[in-house]
């Protein structure tokens, strides 16, 4: 049976987007295949690995397990929208680079989007145990997590600095 296309309007990385999609289209497919935002990855496609994590209305979710049509009016942030296009990296991205928090890089966009969400919920001072527990839904097969945990702790601290700096600038 051919599915009838349906329209969905949402905001992705601050830009309004309207798309005609097959109702089966997952958010991650909308991002990668329709909008060509290929920073968000598909790892397991079963909501376990976290490579596809993006923020929907400010909260980390697995974009392989949400239909695009569920997101009418939603605000989506992907790894591409974390830092300004020509500006410096987001402090969490910088911390992953600085701490060698990645090897092959496949899980990294999901790790970073999850990390920023952890800081939103748990604050800027994160101990290793908290970070490791919070990473339950993000799988990395290269690093053994050690440097990811280090990067998230450092990134969380740096985000406090950058939030203070941007407030001071206002």
């Amino acid at each position, binding site marked *: 049976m051919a599915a009838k296309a349906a329209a969905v309007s949402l905001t992705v990385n601050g830009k309004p987007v309207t798309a005609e999609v097959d109702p089966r289209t997952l958010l991650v497919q909308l991002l990668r295949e329709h909008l060509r935002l290929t920073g968000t990855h598909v790892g397991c496609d079963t909501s376990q690995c976290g490579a596809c994590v993006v923020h929907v209305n400010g909260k*980390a*979710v697995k974009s392989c397990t949400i239909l695009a049509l569920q997101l009418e009016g939603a605000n989506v942030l992907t790894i591409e929208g974390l830092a300004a296009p020509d500006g410096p990296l987001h402090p969490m991205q910088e911390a992953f680079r600085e701490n060698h928090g990645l090897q092959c890089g496949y899980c990294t966009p999901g790790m970073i989007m999850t990390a920023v969400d952890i800081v939103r919920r748990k604050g800027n001072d994160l101990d290793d145990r908290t970070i490791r527990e919070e990473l339950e839904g993000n799988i990395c097969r290269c690093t053994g997590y050690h440097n990811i945990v280090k990067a998230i702790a450092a990134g969380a601290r740096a985000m406090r600095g950058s939030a203070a700096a941007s407030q001071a600038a206002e």
Partner: protein
Amino acid sequence: MYAFTFHRPQTLRQAASLLAKHEEAKLLAGGHTLLPTMKLRLAGPPQLVDLSLIDGIAGVAQSGRSLTIGAMTRHNDVSTSPVVQQAIPALAGLAGMIGDPAVRHMGTIGGSIANNDPNADYPAACLGLGATIITNKRRIKADDFFTGMFSTALEPAEIITKVSFPIPKKAAYQKFRNQASRFALVGVFVSKRGSEIRVAVTGAGANGVFRVPSFEEALKKRFAPKSLEGMTIPADGMNSDIHGSAEYRAHLVGVLARRAVAEAIGK
């Protein structure tokens, strides 16, 4: 996924009439069970009815000695709610043990209990606290609601709107996770409210969540882990798979029940 038509009703009445009109339609709440099942083509509903635009079926409210949670309330909103943490900390704790943080941002209490997965956590809380499941048509006691693996007392076109939990004096949930899936290999919820003692078990039974009357009787004499010392349940009717034999699961029920009672009384 098989093709489907997507509906986004704005009211419960519209949702119910869509269900009545399309016999094979499925409700979509958080989607974290239904969508993976559809991807595997184990489910292929021709119609999906999304509940997320309907007002008034999410949120937490306490009134007297009962706590009411809207069907579309996300696991994360239950686990972090100060009202739930204060009234029934075991319930907040249980919600915080489901899946992972991103899953908890989407998954809902209504979706979980309507699905009645034999390894899910919320059915244990509902049965273990003596909750009442409220639908667009009626109120159903948890004891009558869970009718077997993946099956409930819900009728066609019936929609869960909220779940009402009586606030217990003491309660705790102990979950022994499957190391791969992190689902409950066995989970035991215990509660004490006046003379009513409940022990509910998820993950272990071949027919889904169940109560353990022999444990409840023993705990009525004294609500302490010692009352359950040496007690076990028969392995008949337990799940048995590569993750654990029926005997192992039956053994865990006793161990976890004692741990849960110890936690409930603060020891």
